[in-house]
């Protein structure tokens, strides 16, 4: 949808400009750049400038106090041997590769149940959407820290059934799972996108399938899923990009240290520690560029793979 389809259509030219258009072009240039001025300044000073600067810094040793010292590929070779960094990659990949599909599956499931003019839809939609607005806040992370604590809400409920639950957050084998669950809990926004997408599927397809005696499951596999695939793809791309960058929840739940025993040490958390805890700005910059490459690679793979499963009607 939108941003992504726009981006892929940008290469295509409309055809040569007519003389009238050319005249219009000349007339608008000045006005256009005036309107764009804030954005252009932002692009140079806040986005592209710092990007180039951070690429440069990634080849230096820099601690904010002394001027940056060129060290070539040192930061990157250090990354190769940094076991904590490798662990943070493993944590982040687990989070993304488990959390995103789970979240999207729940979002799709609920959207399917909600579709088709169910009574009270706005009410249900609000209930399911609310957590995704609150989920990024420190307050909800605090709540999570309590409910998955040793004597937190989850274990209190389990105790009613005579089960003694582990300290979900203090146990390295379940701590990441609790944070993944928090991600799944915020399925409301992809659900809304799915609902909008389901609404676009013409009913005549379903009617035709019913005439042919298709079962509910067949209709889902043969109509809903293919017709919805561009939206699934869109959600997948956005959620993956977003999840690689998640920070707040792991930071608050672990008390800022990515513990216990680095089990919730997200890549971004480690980057923060290196950059803003130890002021190893060169290394942090190298990590940031590495993150950009990973996210870029995932997005590229997504786009390539989409040719095989995303179905475009037109």
């Amino acid at each position, binding site marked *: 949808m939108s*941003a992504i389809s*726009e*981006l892929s259509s940008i290469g295509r030219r409309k055809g040569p400009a007519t003389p009238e258009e050319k005249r*219009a*072009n000349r007339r608008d240039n000045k*006005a*256009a750049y005036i*309107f*764009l*001025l*804030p*954005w252009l*300044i*932002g*692009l140079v000073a*806040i*986005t592209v400038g710092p*990007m180039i600067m*951070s690429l440069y810094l990634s080849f230096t040793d820099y601690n904010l106090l002394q001027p940056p010292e060129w060290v070539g590929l040192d930061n990157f070779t250090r990354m190769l041997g940094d076991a904590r960094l490798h662990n943070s990659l493993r944590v982040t990949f687990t989070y993304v590769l488990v959390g995103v599909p789970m979240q999207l599956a729940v979002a799709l499931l*609920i959207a399917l149940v909600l579709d*088709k*003019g*169910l009574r009270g839809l706005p009410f*249900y939609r609000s*209930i*399911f*959407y*609310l*957590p*995704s*607005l609150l989920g*990024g*806040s*420190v*307050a909800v992370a*605090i*709540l999570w820290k*309590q*409910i998955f604590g040793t*004597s937190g809400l989850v274990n209190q409920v389990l105790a009613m059934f005579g089960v003694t639950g582990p300290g979900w957050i203090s146990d390295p084998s379940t701590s990441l799972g609790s944070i993944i669950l928090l991600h799944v809990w915020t399925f409301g*926004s992809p659900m809304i996108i799915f*609902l*909008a997408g389901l*609404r676009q599927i*013409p*009913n005549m397809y379903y009617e035709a399938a019913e005439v042919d005696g298709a079962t509910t499951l067949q209709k889902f596999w043969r109509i809903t899923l293919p017709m919805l695939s561009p939206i699934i793809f*869109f*959600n997948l791309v*956005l959620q993956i990009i977003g999840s690689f960058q998640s920070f707040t929840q792991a930071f608050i739940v672990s008390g800022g240290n990515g513990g216990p025993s680095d089990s919730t040490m997200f890549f*971004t958390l480690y*980057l923060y520690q290196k*950059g*803003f805890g130890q002021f190893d700005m060169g290394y942090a*910059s190298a990590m*940031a*560029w590495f*993150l*950009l490459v990973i996210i870029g690679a995932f*997005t590229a793979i997504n786009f390539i793979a989409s040719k095989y499963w995303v179905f475009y*009607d037109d």
Partner: protein
Amino acid sequence: MTELKTLPAPEKLPSSEGKTRGKSPRGGSRKRESRGTLAFSRGARIKALAKHAVLIIAGGVMIYPLLWMVVSSLRPNDLIFREPGLWLNSLEMGNYVDGWSALTHPFGHYMLNSAVVVIGSILGNLISCSMAAYAFARLQFSGKRLFFGIMLLTIMLPFHVIIVPQYILFSQIGWVNTFWPLIVPKLLATDAFFVFLMVQFIRGIPKELDEAARIDGAGHPRIFLQVILPLMVPALATTTIFTFIWTWNDFFGALIYLTDPEMFTVPVALRAFVDSQSATSWGSLFAMSIVSLLPVFLVFLFGQRFLIKGIATTGIK
């Protein structure tokens, strides 16, 4: 201007973007469906009941932790670790009183700081993004395709790639522990999501309106201010609401730039509270968490329509 207002507001136009497949609009089939349910076939009724049961259980599980936090904040502290239910025997406001003054400044101070950042960010986004969007949607200029592509790409750019040099830049001009690093980027349209949202919206406004104004002798500033801006109020509302929620919740930026308790916004204040709390102050921690969520909840309550439209058209969180 009054004639313009009688024209159909292009509210629905952006949402018709995406792909309109086939010709049968859903509206028509909706009617048929509802007539079907009026017939009350037994199978359909059972199916609907089952759906409601699933949704009520799922929704209950989703919302339970939040309700429980509200109730727990009104309980004596020790009950938070013993009472999973939602019933209240008495109403304890003590947690709110304690929490409000638990940090170096009263909690209201941090809320005021957050409000300053939020208002600055909203104004910044509204002005800078609408200007850029007008240029992208309505004006022809050299480099438009390239710039538009770059703008779309910046939507997906991870913040971390620019944070280190940005921090160096802002610390060199002495902006650490001021609100400028959090507000100035918004004044420069760096939240490209909103530029895109507004471009989509402006594209749905009939071009004839611009033409008419142009024939009357209006230049671009006037067309923008008097024709386009009044018609894009729904997009501006969506931008305002999302900027409010994101800025109010923003933790990473505040964590990096605001280290002086005097300047703390609500999220970093809460974090300081978490770090300092002893095992006995969960109640007041919950109470302040509720206070911090309240503005977002209110915005959600009154601005839901714009939120849902905004997400459905651009896929923002």
